[in-house]
Structures are given as structure tokens and as C-alpha cells.
């Protein structure tokens, strides 16, 4: 390769089968070598209305103040500044800013709810609540 630089790679979990994949840092999506499904690996910034069954990325997701999401959401880190109706799983943390309106069940390692945000649902938050991430540390 010219310049001799090798692309940075990172380990992720497939958003479908939760098995470990190694992907190029710059990749936007890959095909899982375990379950052969497409895995979104780019950071997502949601600025509009999204209504789907599953809305997943193996990267950060930010639902901006104009974002309205009706979906089951999965991300590495999840920040919600808009509206989410659906269950959410974050491999690391979930952050609700003061404008966030969330109805759904949340699971993640950490949760921050800024004053003004609203959240209704069952939550499972804690270092042991996302056992899937143990595979990444092996």
C-alpha cells in the first residue's frame, strides 16, 4: 500500500447474531461471516422520522432533536435528543438529553437522564446487564 499505512480495524459485535467481527474502522457496513446478514457499522445521526422494525448499528447512534424513531434500536452508544418509541439496547451507555422523550425498555451499561427528559419503560442498567460485550474483551 502506498505510504505503508494499514487501515485501522476494530472489533464489533454483529447486531444480528452478537458474534465478534473485525472490521475496517472506515467501513459503513459489512456482511457478517457468521450469519451472513448485513451489519451497519457507521455512526448514525438521525435527523428525521424513522419507522422500521429494527434500527441497528455497531457504532454510535444519535437521535437529534428533530429525530423521531419508532423502532427497536441497537447501538454501541446511544444519545437521544428527540423521540424514541421502542426498545433500546446500547453496548455501552444511553444518554437522554433534556429534550428526549422515550417510551420503551432500555438495556445498557450506563444511563444518564438529563433534567427535563422523560422516560417510561423497564430498564436494565449496569455493568452486568450487557453480557454480550464480554466476547469483545476476550
Amino acid at each position, binding site marked *: 500500500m502506498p505510504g505503508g499505512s494499514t487501515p485501522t480495524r476494530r472489533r464489533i459485535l454483529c447486531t444480528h447474531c452478537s458474534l465478534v467481527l473485525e472490521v475496517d474502522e472506515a467501513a459503513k457496513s459489512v456482511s457478517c461471516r457468521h450469519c451472513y446478514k448485513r451489519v451497519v457499522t457507521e455512526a448514525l445521526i438521525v435527523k428525521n422520522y424513522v419507522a422500521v422494525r429494527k434500527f441497528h448499528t455497531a457504532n454510535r447512534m444519535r437521535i437529534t432533536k428533530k429525530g423521531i424513531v419508532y423502532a427497536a434500536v441497537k447501538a454501541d452508544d446511544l444519545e437521544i435528543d428527540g423521540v424514541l418509541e421502542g426498545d433500546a439496547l446500547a453496548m455501552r451507555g444511553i444518554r437522554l438529553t433534556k429534550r428526549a422523550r422515550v417510551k420503551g425498555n432500555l438495556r445498557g451499561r*450506563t444511563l444518564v437522564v438529563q433534567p427535563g427528559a422523560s*422516560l417510561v419503560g423497564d430498564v436494565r442498567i449496569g455493568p452486568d446487564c450487557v453480557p454480550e460485550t464480554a466476547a469483545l474483551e476476550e
Partner: protein
Amino acid sequence: MAESISTKNDDFATVIGPDAQFNGELTFQGGVRIDGKFDGSITTTGKVFVSKSGHLKAEVKAASLALEGKLEGNLTAQDRVELRATGQMLGDVKASKLLVVEGATFIGRCEVGPDVKATPAPVTTAKGVKEPPTMRPVCAGK
């Protein structure tokens, strides 16, 4: 982020010490700090602080709560709830503000937001009549 709940010793008129074990119902107006074991229910218009050694199996109604120990039971807070790094909350939370610090555990149902109507904790007046503080303010020492 708004200021965190102060947990200085001077803030708490009632302290349940680390060696103490208390079963029953606590109803009062000031803050309480729990370093020991508590089983029952707590109703206060003040704040509740459960330190690292504190373990509650209780229904708690308070203005705010800071948790460093363990709480098993449902919690209603009119203002803020802070689950700190060593805190373990197993139960439902109803509050207007919530902070879960990295390391803390929270498993239960959550209703948080400015529109969440947490019923104010009833306080006992001098005549021994229980009524919500919004109906008639009760002055300490009255």
C-alpha cells in the same frame, strides 16, 4: 447537569448507623441517612441517602434519594434520584430526574420526567392527622 444531591452529615437529622437493623415504618420531615439495614417503608418530605453499607428492603417516598448501597423496593421521588457507582436499585422508580452513574445497577420499571406526578409524601401533623404537605404546610416544631 444540575448539582448533585448533597450528602454531608449535617444534612441528616436521622441516621441509621452501620450496626443498626430497623424493621418498620419511618415517617418524618427531614433527611435520613441509612448506613445499616432497613426493612419496611420510608416516607419523608426530605432527602434519603443510602450509603455504601446501607441496605434497604423498602417502599420509599421522598423528595430525593442518593443511593450508594442497595435498595430493593419501589421508589417515588418528587425531585431527583441519583444511583451512584456502587448503587444497586432493584425496583421501580418514579421521579422527575434520574442519574445513573457508570457502575450502578438499576433493574426495574422507570417513569422519569417533568410530567411524572410523584404523589407527595404525606406528613404527620402535630394533631397526628396524615395529609399531603401541599394541603397545609407543616412547620417543624409546631
